[in-house]
């Protein structure tokens, strides 16, 4: 659920206590602590936990320019090395020598919507030249659609010309570096790193990968998707269009010859959520790959945002919050410290329960329980329907409580009738969410059945691969 949904649940929890409502009427605002307690798990995770979390692999497809805080970063040629392969940079220098101007046919593999590969042949124009920025020189290549764009932008490329070139770094067969003109990093680097992390997790236990997003000038982002395909034992990364933070695409996708990155994985793994991971605005995700047992087999399982929904999202934490609130407010002499402590604990528990309605689940009672209990899969955390239904229910509770704790009642109506009148939008909303969740559960069940056949795929692979 979204932050405000949790927060308003804490606000509502406080109103169930007549003493706290009485305080609020007198202008004593301390009960707002219950709302802060309800939001506390996310506050801790996103304002602290996230920054201290371990990162075994940090994938930054397009490092930021340190002054402007967006990509591509303007670098000196001497700063580039093989470890920058597939990353997106800008280099400013002088065209030293035109090596090749050519045209011909280009053959490359593309991935269709249904996951099949197809070999495509296109005619292309190209240019290869060396660029020198005073710290070194690098070969620059532009071909296909990128060549057309490059020529449109700069006109005819001549020796001695000063220019700013952006593109991704690649390594030639002889080991020398080159810059391939493009408007995005190549996704192969992302795919390879994730595949390596999965393989290491299988042998070592766990690997956490941080994937940075790609921010471009004008507060727009290059969208990309990470598909984990367990039956094919593949990690596929697809570069998408440039999008606004609101998700509106403002360009086409990159040309097909640099749109996909595919890396094979030599160990079995499963994906617990039936959609690819999309990376665009705000920040990129962290994914933990952990060795686990599935149907008696050792596999690697993914866990999205491993620092989230940990101890902060447990009922145990709710008890601790209740005790701390009680101790502090008793100490400063607040006469309703007990009620406030219980309201704060309930607020935090409501947070845990509301998140349990989604996918991630939580480790509910550590240290008694050791592992995450999967969520009820009623809807995604960002679902407008479940968020609104929950938040509205909490508003209904608040109005209901304010009314029943006021004498004479501002709304002269029986408690049951008033609650029903106030809460019907939430009842309808939850009803629709439950109906929808059946479809989602079916999809997940099908996915898990699919994984059950993993062994069959392994055999196929042994006799020649898929």
């Amino acid at each position, binding site marked *: 659920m*979204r*932050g*405000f*949904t949790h*927060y*308003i649940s804490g*606000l509502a929890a406080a109103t169930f206590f007549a003493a706290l409502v009485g305080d*609020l*009427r007198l*202008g004593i*605002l301390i*009960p*707002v602590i219950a*709302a*802060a307690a309800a*939001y506390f798990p996310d*506050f801790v995770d*996103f*304002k*602290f936990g*996230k*920054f*201290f979390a371990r990162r075994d692999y940090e994938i*930054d497809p397009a490092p*930021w320019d340190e002054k*402007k*805080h*967006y990509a591509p970063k303007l670098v000196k040629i001497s700063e580039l090395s093989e470890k920058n392969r597939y990353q997106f940079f800008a280099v400013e220098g002088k065209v030293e020598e035109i090596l090749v101007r050519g045209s011909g046919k280009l053959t490359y593999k593309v991935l269709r919507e249904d996951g099949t590969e197809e070999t495509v042949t296109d005619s292309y124009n190209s240019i290869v030249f060396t660029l020198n920025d005073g710290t070194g020189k690098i070969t620059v290549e532009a071909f296909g659609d990128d060549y057309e764009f490059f020529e449109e932008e700069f006109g005819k490329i001549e020796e001695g010309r000063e220019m700013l070139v952006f593109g991704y770094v690649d390594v030639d067969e002889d080991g020398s570096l080159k810059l391939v003109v493009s408007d995005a990093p190549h996704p192969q680097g992302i795919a390879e790193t994730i595949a390596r992390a999965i393989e290491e997790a299988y042998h070592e236990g766990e690997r956490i990968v*941080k994937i*940075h997003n790609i921010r471009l*000038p*004008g*507060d*727009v982002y290059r969208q990309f998707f990470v598909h984990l395909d367990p039956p094919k034992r593949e990690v596929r990364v697809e570069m998408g269009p440039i999008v*606004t*933070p*609101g*998700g*509106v695409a*403002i360009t086409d996708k990159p040309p097909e010859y640099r749109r996909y990155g595919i890396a094979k994985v030599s160990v079995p793994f499963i994906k617990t959520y039936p959609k690819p991971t999309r990376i665009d605005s*705000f*920040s*990129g995700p962290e994914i933990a790959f952990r060795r686990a047992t599935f149907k008696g087999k050792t596999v690697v399982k993914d866990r999205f945002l491993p620092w989230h929904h940990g101890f902060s999202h447990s009922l145990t934490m709710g008890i601790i919050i209740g005790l701390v609130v009680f101790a502090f407010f008793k100490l400063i002499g607040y006469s309703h410290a007990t009620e406030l402590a219980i309201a704060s604990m309930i607020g935090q528990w409501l947070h845990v329960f509301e998140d349990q309605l989604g996918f991630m689940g939580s480790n509910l009672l550590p240290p008694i329980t050791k592992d995450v209990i999967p969520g009820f899969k009623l809807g995604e955390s*960002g*679902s*407008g329907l479940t*968020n*609104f239904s929950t*938040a*509205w229910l909490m508003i209904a509770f*608040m*109005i209901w409580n*304010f*009314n029943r704790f*006021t004498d004479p009642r*501002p*709304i002269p109506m029986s408690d049951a009738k008033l609650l029903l009148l106030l809460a019907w939008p939430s009842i309808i909303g939850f009803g629709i969410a439950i109906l929808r969740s059946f479809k989602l559960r079916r999809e997940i069940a099908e996915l898990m059945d699919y994984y059950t056949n993993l062994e069959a795929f392994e055999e196929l692979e042994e006799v020649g691969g898929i």
Partner: protein
Amino acid sequence: MIPLSDLLLWSFAGVLFGSLISWIPGFHIFNIMALLVAVFGVGELMPVQAFPFFAIGAIVAYAFVSAISSVYFSVADESAVFLLFPTQRYLLLGRGHEAVLLYLIGAVAGTLVLVLGALFIFPKVLPPIYQATSPYITYFLVAIVVFMFMSEWPKEGDRGKTPLQRLWLAWRQILGGILVFFISGILGFIVMNTNLLPTTSAYTRLTPMFIGFFGMSWVLLNILSNPPMLEQVPEDKVESSIYNALKATFGGALGGTIAAVYPIITGGMGALVAGHMTSQRGDDAFIISQGVNRVIYYVGAFTLLFLPNLRLTRGAAAWLVSSVYTPKSYSEYLAAMGVILLSAGISFLFTYYLSKFIARSFNVLHIKKLSYIVAVVLVVISYLLTGPMGVVVLFVSTAIGMMAAAFNTRRSYCLGGLVLPVLISMTGHTGYFMHLLGLG
């Protein structure tokens, strides 16, 4: 009630007045109305019973036409030093007119929701709900402020090299927001509780502060960033969906209603709450919901003055009007609904054609030049309303507004200028804080 012909005449005058000034960046209808009353008075040129209808026309026009200034004349610096609003991104893509159309879709939807709500729901539902919840307004207000702080999304921090560096980068922005809120609050407290500004400016003492926080700082950013004047496409085409439009209308209406009914809670705060409640995402939905939100917030809040069984005074315009004349009968309430529909129709056409005109001739007058002129006019307005000290307040609040932009935090933290002193007052601590600041 005044004769229908007079009512229509003054309402139309209000729409015309509102339309003519609302497209100018940094101008706010409340400030200009206050200036109008201060300079010309009411009762001589215009009958007092006509003033609420003139005001409705002007406010409806503002809710519609101000889309022009926020789309075409707000900072959209290519280097994107600060994060951009969706409307600014549309402008950078040459789709400013599309952004205005999306806003207008929202504004029309907001008008319909408001009128239907005002005719069939508000008179029955609002009074009991308001009665049950009004003693707890301070609770809601402080809850929203705490949530604003707690929910600030760190825009940086991911790329720090060490955990501590990441934490600092994230918290730099959050702490910046808290600082802006409290500095704004101290300024607001001084302006509200001292004789810094002349007592003759009772209704307008907050005006220079708000001009500085939101108007002047916006205009200065226009000047400093010197945004490119990109060619705009004046085509009547929007990329959205009925689902997104309905969802945005719902969210916008929710946020606008919260802000309209409860004091101090502004449209931005209402939008924050409603955006989280309905889990909105998407630039098109955001712009549509802004249109809905602003109509319901501005026009709806003012309409509450007409509701005979509630008659709430919400917003600066309502306070200004109620000091002269308060509508009393249901016939005036119904007439107000008619005026809202009429004004919305006129404002829609005005905004649509003005947007087409501006989109076609966007690079004729550079924003920077227009911003210089507006900056001078804002200083003059502040001086006329509150004297030389008002201009000092304007400069201080402008600096605070610029700080919010520099820290990359929510501009709405400047509302601390209103929220903090009101909270202090509601909780009975004004004397204590006066003493703390050495003011009494």
